[in-house]
């Protein structure tokens, strides 16, 4: 009898919470709305971003440039002190990473799929394409902000991702996900801060990535929407082109 009572009470509590929480879908939609709305996103066809990258604990810093265009081509260039130049990119078909510390890598399998998926331009408005399910599971304080916690299931079968949306502003405060790199599945958290209007939409100008107990801080200094980017910018670098020929 007691067990039945507890179970019944729990179901009531669970039901009560679910009723009080907005749906995951509505929170993703709200995010699109508060950052500019679908129409604003639709005006953007490309973006050039410049900024800095820092690993404060290790004393490492560098510069960052990202070239991104619709539908899904993206190249990120980093120049990190003591490490040198690093390029990560995709032309929508192939995905690669080239650095002095690791050499050239033509991505394949799940790593390649993840890189192409994440290069989807204007990603927020395509969230339904990226996630088959978005379930709000509670309210949590993250980075000092009260947030809705949403667990999203990717359509490509990869591991679930957790989003925290600011209860007040609707902005995305944090994402927890699995990064695929170096043949490894690496748990990562990305905190987003300093939302500002840049071009047509509002976006975070500071991103703090926490991976393997270390913090990497990306600070964007300029974001230029619809800047002309030559197509060659998205061409694979020479070493990657040679690897593509070799693999063919």
């Amino acid at each position: 009898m007691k067990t039945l009572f507890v179970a019944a009470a729990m179901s009531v509590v669970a039901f009560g919470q679910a009723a009080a929480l907005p749906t995951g879908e509505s929170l993703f939609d709200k995010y699109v709305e508060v950052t500019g709305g679908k129409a604003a996103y639709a005006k953007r066809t490309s973006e050039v971003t410049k900024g800095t990258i820092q690993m404060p604990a290790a004393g490492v810093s560098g510069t960052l440039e990202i070239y991104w265009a619709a539908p899904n081509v993206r190249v990120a260039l980093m120049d990190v002190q003591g490490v040198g130049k690093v390029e990560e990119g995709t032309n929508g078909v192939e995905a690669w990473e080239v650095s002095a510390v690791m050499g050239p890598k033509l991505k394949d399998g799940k790593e390649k799929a993840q890189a192409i998926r994440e290069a989807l331009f204007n990603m927020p408005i395509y969230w339904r394409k990226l996630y088959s399910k978005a379930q709000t599971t509670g309210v949590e304080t993250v980075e000092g902000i009260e947030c809705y916690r949403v667990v999203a299931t990717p359509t490509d079968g990869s591991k679930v991702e957790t989003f925290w949306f600011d209860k007040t502003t609707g902005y995305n405060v944090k994402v927890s996900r699995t990064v695929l790199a170096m043949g490894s599945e690496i748990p990562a958290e990305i905190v987003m801060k300093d939302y500002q209007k840049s071009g047509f939409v509002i976006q975070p100008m500071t991103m703090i990535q926490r991976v393997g107990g270390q913090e990497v801080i990306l600070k964007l200094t300029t974001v230029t929407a619809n800047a002309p980017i030559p197509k060659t910018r998205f061409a694979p670098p020479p070493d990657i082109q040679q690897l593509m020929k070799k693999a063919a």
Partner: protein
Amino acid sequence: MSPGERQVQLESFEHVWKTIRDKHWEAKPGGLDWQKVHDELRPKAEQAKTADEMTAIMSDMLARLKQSHFKVISASAYKDMDMEASWGSGDAGFDARVLGDAAYVVRVDPNVPVSLGWKIRKIRNRDLDTAIRAVDSVYKGTNYRDLRMTSMLQSRLTGIPGSGMTVEFEDGNGQTVIKTILLKQPRGKPAAFGNLPPVPVFVETSKVGNTGYIRFNMFLDPMRLISTIGGFATGECATCDGMVIDVRGNPGGIGIMATAVAGWFIDKANLKLGTMHMRDSTLNFVVNPRPKTFAGPVAVLIDGASASTSEIFAGGMQDLKRARLFGTRSAAAALPSIVEVLPNGNGFQYAVANYISSGGKTLEANGVVPDEEVRLTPAGLLTGKDAVLDAALSWIGKQKGKK
């Protein structure tokens, strides 16, 4: 210490302790009750009268882990190692190792008035036996002995570039030879990585007959080092009979650079040198093959002063059966680490992961065991021979014969 200085020192103490608590790959660091370590040392830290005493207490804390790559680097060491200040970076033009219970010259640059195999008795009139005994009092019988001995020798065989250093040798005939060695500017170019003090990095490539030879002193400055190695291995030496990669005395550097070097010699994708195990995740050290790689036999030379990234590289190449290793067991100090600057200005190096080679070996405390153990001997060195290199060249010669 003023109250303000004491506060900064105590903040540094807490930072070191908390970092190990939160970031060591074992929930119970080194198998210790870490809270108990704190509770024992905190009162001592509060009573410390000088910054040096505080550094000693933090060093004591880290020493209890009995693992490599945990240390406090005094703020003055940064100053000493500053390339601009050119203090303590002078190059004697020869390398030394402790063989048995005495130090010997094992490599000499051209035009340096020293011979291979000479025994080193005194450096700047200080008896070396005393220092060797001091290292032995702590490390005799351990796999760290060679590394500590080499560090001790290196710290004595340096000074202000342009200054003279008196060294007393014993030649092959048992005669005393006293030389004033002019300390040169350090070889290579200064390279910095994060909070590591800048160090001079060099890479040399040459041919011994038709075998390539590559030596570099650290895994740093990747833009220059990796391209130099690759340019040589797939360019000038593309048709060489084999390649010798000499990481003897190489203390490591950026861990992941081991994969970039391996990428010039491994043609197959998705192979890994090993895996880094952190508290919440693992990271594979996957080799990215270059479009063009060196296909011939590869020999890697190691010794007790080959540490960290050198061990990751050598151990992985051995496990993947891509290289044959010659020399003596490596330093057994292979934990991936980072270096922070503490509030008191000291450096703080701590390991963030354990590392297991692709063959399943934990390199820390075990080291990499060469396929062919070859020990340098004073008698062999006096003949001008490098027995380890000779063994590698002989093996490469036989591989050619097998073709």
